[in-house]
Every structure is written in C-alpha cells, then in structure tokens.
C-alpha cells in the first residue's frame, strides 16, 4: 500500500495518459494519428530505455537498437513458426511476447558481461560493434530472416482473450497499454533505490565502490533491463508493420535514438519521449520536401550539438527560467 501511496502522482498521470490515448482511437476515425502514435510508442521506448543507460547510469551505448531489432525478430519468428502457434493456440501472442523479451534479456546479458567492465569510449564502440554483428547475422542468414528483404509473409496474430491484434483499433489500444505500463515501470525504477544507485555510479563509480556498491553487477542489471525495454519497442513495431526489417538493427537506428535523447535532454525523465516526437516529426516533414533527408537531418544534428550544446527542451526551459529571473 505504501508503494501505491508513494507513486500516487505517477499512477494518476499514467491512467490519465492512457485514457487520452484510448480516446484518440475511439473519437478519431482517420488512422493517421494512431499510426503516428504507435511509431512514437515503439521508438519512444527505444529512446526511453536508452536513456536509462545514458541518463541514469552514464553508460553511453551506441548499439542499443540491436535489442530493439532482436525483440522484433524473435517475436516475428516465433509467431511464424507453425508448431509454436499450434502448440500455444490462442495464447501464442502473449507467450511469444514474453519469450522475445526474455531472449533479448539473455542475449544482452552475454553482451553486457563483456561490455560493462570497459571504460566509456570502449563501451560505446563495443556496443556498436556487437550491434553490427547482429546486423550482419540478420542480413546473411537469409533462410531464417529473409536477409535484406526483412521478415516477409506477415506475422500471424491469433486473437487472445477477446483481443484481436489484426484489428487496427485493438492493436492500437493494446500497444498504448503496453507503452504506458513500460514508461511507468521506468519511472518507478528511476525513483527507486536502484535508480539512485545508478546515479551514484554515473556520478562517481569509484566512490560508489567504496560505499559498498557492486558496480559491475548493478551496471549489468541496468543494461539487461534497458535492453528488455528496447525489445518491447521492437515488438510493438513488429506488430504494427507485421514484419521485421534489418534497418532496425543498423547502426543509424542507434544514432537516431541517441539524438532523440539529446533533443529532449538527458536530465528530464520524459525528455527522450519529447525528443522522439520531435525527431519523428522532423523526419516526416523533411521526407516530404527533400529526397536527401539524411543530409538535412545531419545538418540539424550539427546545429543542435555544436550550436545549442544541449537538448532543445533543456534549451527552452533555461530560456524560460532566465526570463523569470
């Protein structure tokens, strides 16, 4: 009960956000807002979970999208397996969901054991290298993954408990619930003992060791949780597109996620989500007006990083607080 009392405000915010998200589906018939929001759910989870590493723990990973992609591929491949669907019947989707998250957790634990011991530069590069390893596996193992073309043939979505994920409204509401739940969990982690232990490590890992923190173990746990969260984002994308694509495992996906975090600011809990919305919108707009969106996005990143030297959201918050003074 203490727990509920402590998180009262966050619980209210979560419920209200969820109600707003669901009402969008009920009152707006046009699919565009739903499609846009599902992509925000998915990439938002990627960015939010990456910020658990970068913002909470100070572990700058350049290969986080690997876990996003792994979640998506594991989910798709499990459901495309006829025996799997035959065996689990109507529970196929929830079981595939949980299994995919667990598989990602296991994989990230193996990568994590190697990476968390290293200093920040090595950590960034190594996570990137392992992401490109996964990418090369996906691209070259054509018989399993479809290679360049991605996971083709659609992902079966057998209904469970009256929820039919092939229906776009059902799918949207399902994704909203999962999304809000994940953000809520991240929020609890952020305010928990564990969250503060991560801050200790981020600020001064040597001192943390001297007050008795098991630094490597805590880093590893953080790495695995963040990866599992990213895999949920990937699963949402796989559900939405009814497929999985190697681009999700490509390094640019991780670079994009880092920029989302930077745009929104690492110091604000919900910042990466704002960053996701900003970048997705910028992306959509640029793609309408230019066939060279990489060039434009690259220039925007340079301007933000070298010009503002901080996230857009942080920049404007500071402007506002200056004016007040």
């Amino acid at each position: 009960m203490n727990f509920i009392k402590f998180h009262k405000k966050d619980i209210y915010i979560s419920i209200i956000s969820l109600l707003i998200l669901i009402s969008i589906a009920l009152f707006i018939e046009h699919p565009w807002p739903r499609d846009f929001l599902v992509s925000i759910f998915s990439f938002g989870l990627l960015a939010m979970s990456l910020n658990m590493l970068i913002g909470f723990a100070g572990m700058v990973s350049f290969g986080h999208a690997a876990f996003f992609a792994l979640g998506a591929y594991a989910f798709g491949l499990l459901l495309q397996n006829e025996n799997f669907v035959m065996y689990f019947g109507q529970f196929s989707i929830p079981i595939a969901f949980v299994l995919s998250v667990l598989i990602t957790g296991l994989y990230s634990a193996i990568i994590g054991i190697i990476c968390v011991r290293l200093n920040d530069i090595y950590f960034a590069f190594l996570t990137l290298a392992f992401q490109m390893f996964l990418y090369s596996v996906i691209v070259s193992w054509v018989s399993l993954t479809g290679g360049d073309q991605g996971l083709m043939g659609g992902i079966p979505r057998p209904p469970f408990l009256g929820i039919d994920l092939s229906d776009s409204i059902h799918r949207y509401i399902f994704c909203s619930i999962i999304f809000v739940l994940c953000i809520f969990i991240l929020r609890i982690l952020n305010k928990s003992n564990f969250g503060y232990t991560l801050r200790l490590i981020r600020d001064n890992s040597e001192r943390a060791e001297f007050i008795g923190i098991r630094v490597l173990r805590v880093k590893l746990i953080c790495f695995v949780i963040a990866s599992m969260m990213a895999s949920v984002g990937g699963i949402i994308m796989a559900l939405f597109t009814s497929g999985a694509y190697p681009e999700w495992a490509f390094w640019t996906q991780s670079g994009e996620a880092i920029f989302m975090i930077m745009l929104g600011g690492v110091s604000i809990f919900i910042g990466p989500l704002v960053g996701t919305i900003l970048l997705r919108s910028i992306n959509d707009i640029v793609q309408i007006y230019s066939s060279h969106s990489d060039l434009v996005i690259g220039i925007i990143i340079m301007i933000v990083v070298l010009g503002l030297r901080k996230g857009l959201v942080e920049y404007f918050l500071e402007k506002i607080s200056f004016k007040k003074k």
Partner: protein
Amino acid sequence: MIDVDALLNCFGVASCAVNQLTSGLIIGMLLFLVASGLTLIFGVLNVINFAHGTFYMLGAYFAFSTYLLTESYLLSALIGALGAGFFGILFERFLISKVYGQDILMQLLVCYAFILITDDLVKIIWGSEYLSMGVPDEFRLPPFRVFGGFVPPLYAFLIILSLVIGVITIFLISKTRFGSIVRAAAENAKMVSALGIRVPLYFALLFGLGCALAGIAGALGAPVRSLTPGMGFGILIESFIVTVIGGMGSIPGALIAALILGITRSIGSVGFPLFVDGMMFVIMALVLIFKPTGLFVKGSSK
C-alpha cells in the same frame, strides 16, 4: 557450420592456398592502414574517430575520379590520401575539436551527423550505384607464379606499399620532431603550448594524418573493391576490432591484428562463409575477456 572438406581441398593444393593467403594479406594490409589511423588518433588525442570510415570512403571516391581524369593509379592514390587528410583536418578544426573534453555523447553525435552528411553528399555527387575502378593499366602485367599459385603484381605492390607506409608512420611518430611534439602535447598540452608551440595546429595535423591513412587505404583498394556510399562503416567496425585485438594506440599491434583478421576472412570465405563476421567477433570477444587491453599493449582499458 564449418565446411572441412572445402578447407582441406583448398589448402591441400598449393595454388589455392597461395591465392587465399594473398587475398588475406590484401584485406589485412588495407585494414591495417585504416586501423593505424584510428589507433594513432586515439593514442594521441584520446578520441575515437567514429567517422573514420568516412575518410576511407572519401579516399576511394577521390581516387576514382582522379583515375578517370588522369588514368594514373599512383596519382589517384596520392590525391585520395591528400584529399582525405585535408577533409580530416577540416573535420577536426571545425567540428570534432569543438566537443573535445565534453562527454562522449556529443562526440558520438558529431560523428553520426558527419557520416549522414558525407554519405548523402557522396550519393549526390557520384550516385548511389556501385562503382568500380578496375585494374589500372600500370598493373596489367602477367602474374607472378608462387608455389603454383598466381599473384597479380597489383596485389604484391599493395601489400608491400602498405607495409612501407606503416613503417613510415611509425618513424614519423617516434623519431621526428613532429612526432615528439605531438606525443609531448598528448601528455601535457598546456606545458607544450607554454613553449610557444601551437598545439591545436599539431593536433589537427595528426588528425589529418590519421584520416589520410584511411584515405590512402580507400584509394589503394579502389581497384579491388567496389565503391558505394556508406562503404566506410563496415571498415570502421573491422578496424575497431583490429584495435581492440592489437591494443588501442599500438601500431605494430594493429598490423598483427589486421593480418589475423585478413587471414581469418580469406580462410573463412572458403571454410565457413556464413560465419566469417561471427568469427571476427568471437576473436574480439575472447581478447576482451582474457586480455581487455589488447594483445600488444600494457595498461588498462577499464
């Protein structure tokens, strides 16, 4: 997973073994040049140039265009190296040096943006199709016969030239005035600039040298590789694996590690084609687990 028969068939026959080893050496030596640039920049500036592959790509494309105009392979290689070095200096002065000393997130983003921009510019200028330079006229000569295998003169030239460039680089860093200033500045930049030496200039030159090494690798390899925007990223990852295995900051380490990877690749393409990339990562992971500082470096990566 491993096709033992194919391996035995190839390595039982001298000519096949020679061919595979030569191609392994080529892959290894070009990789060595790129990686030595990466490790040089890291060793002195303590910055990992995540955009290093871009300069490899630029070197290749500059060489390609020069060759179209002049039909001279050597001139193309020179222009490739100088062009990449020049852009490297610009990149260092106007972009990456602005985020020195800041957290690594900023460095990552600057490199990420730079890669996006240059890849797209290359696409605009040279198109997105694969380009091929072909074997230059200078090297359309009959191949050498070694143990029944054929070694094209171009291959022999590439291997020897790469080695020479590597030796010159080591000499430049360890024996010349430029090298000693740069190494001293890496230890204590304030002290060196108090002596009236313009440290930022030397840092920019060193960065340019590192990029020129990537550029010349791209240029020299242009006849044996195909050119495409984004070609730099794969080689970035591979040269990173090389520096992890050889030890960050060690050029001789980079040479040996690059040869290990090159040979692994060429043997792998016969024996375990699907698992070649995997094998490189397995080697890297083993080094990281058992000797995280790399095979040839004392000190700590922790």
